[in-house]
């Protein structure tokens, strides 16, 4: 029986990911283009927010993926710390810049959306501020990876940082809620159809293209992480080869 841990073997991972990568890229392209075109051109404008509502097809999926990317890094860090699978540590390293960029996109589109809606680019609101802090966590994590030369040591230390950072990210999230009641609306995607009032939750006209675009961003994340992990593995093999040559 094959177990999931066999993918911790870099060779096995490379073989499987080579097969998976085109699928992930293709699905990402199809879902992203489909969802975004559907969203931008074939949905009506919102009766209150006008055309600006269309930014949700980018803003909401990237925000969701920004948090999930950190969660994925947390899981990978735990696997590395407990079972010491190199691919896991490299996947966490590969995911960090992707998550960072998603956070940045969510912050930026949020600012662009917030300007016409709330009349301000930035507000010290719990959601916005916790995303800024998440962005700082990504920066610190990446900086620590860059600062340490020994790869195993770097993987260990960044994993510990990721663990502690997750706890503090959660803590600041709830701390911020106490601090200031927000301007940002609550989660509306999961309340579709559950809302007692009609205008609660996202209308299904907007929801389906957004879910398509979300799937697109998920596949995009998977494709980018697979691609970057493969690059990391190759870079490490190259390093080993060069070291071997110098020894000989």
């Amino acid at each position, binding site marked *: 029986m094959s177990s999931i841990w066999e993918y911790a073997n870099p060779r096995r991972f490379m073989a499987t990911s080579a097969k998976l990568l085109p699928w992930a890229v293709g699905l990402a392209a199809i879902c992203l283009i489909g969802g975004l075109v559907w969203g931008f051109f074939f949905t009506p404008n919102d009766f209150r927010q006008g055309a600006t509502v269309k930014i949700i097809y980018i803003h909401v999926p990237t925000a969701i993926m920004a948090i999930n990317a950190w969660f994925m890094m947390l899981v990978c860090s735990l696997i590395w710390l407990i079972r010491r699978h190199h691919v896991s540590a490299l996947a966490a390293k590969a995911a960090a810049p992707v998550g960072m960029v998603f956070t940045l996109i969510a912050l930026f589109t949020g600012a662009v959306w917030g300007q016409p809606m709330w009349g301000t680019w930035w507000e010290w609101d719990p959601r916005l501020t916790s995303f800024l802090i998440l962005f*700082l966590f990504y920066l610190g994590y990446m900086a620590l990876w860059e*600062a340490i030369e020994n790869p195993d040591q770097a993987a260990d230390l960044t994993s510990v940082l990721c663990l*502690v950072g997750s*706890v*503090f990210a959660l803590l*600041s999230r709830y*701390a911020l809620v106490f601090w200031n009641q927000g301007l940002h609306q609550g989660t509306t995607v999961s309340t579709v159809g559950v809302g007692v009032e009609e205008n609660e939750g996202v209308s299904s006209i907007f929801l389906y293209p957004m879910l398509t675009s979300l799937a697109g961003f998920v596949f995009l994340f998977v494709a980018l992480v697979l691609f970057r992990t493969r690059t990391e593995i190759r870079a490490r093999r190259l390093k080993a080869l060069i070291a071997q040559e110098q020894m000989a």
Partner: protein
Amino acid sequence: MIGLLKRDLALAVRAGGGFGLSLAFFLIFTALVPFGIGPETGRLAEIAAGLLWLGALLACLLSLDRIFQLDWEDGSLDLLATSPLPLEALAALKALAHWITTGLPLVVAAPLLGLILNLPGPAYVPLLASLLAGTPALSAIGTFGAALTVGIKRGGLLLSLLVLPLYVPTLLFGAMAATRGAQGLDFTTPLLLTLGITLGAIALLPFAAAASLRINLR
């Protein structure tokens, strides 16, 4: 353990630089504030409590890279690691020594500096209480950050980048307790939450710091 604590304290006081430096920084920070935002007493009084918290946090941050760096450079950290004392206890002791030499003087100095910022009278007790409750968390978090970056040359800036986001919840609740107190509102909830963060940090972070030290000393 007591001996180690005494050694750290003596080193901090005698070796120069470490002990008074963050206090001096705190003083200068506070003295610069009126230049930056204007000396009107009303406006100063409004933000004094939050500013003092911010100043204390930055002063604390400045002294973090001294926690392990000197011991690392002269090799005594290796000796301490091989001693029968567990590394977790070492990390906790280092955090305690850092708090005694940095956090505690800042707490003591805060009321005096509150005076020059026109901190309103009823604000002193909540400010002192929140600083007393919060600064140990700053030391514990900082010790973890210092343990992470101990092997890195010129890790000071990296240390700030790593530690500052971790400081957010402590600063938030601590400053909230102080400002609520300054406005004459009830400040027990944020104070208790600050205390909760401190207790959690003291209980858990020495383990993370010890793990990082072990990796760095390997």
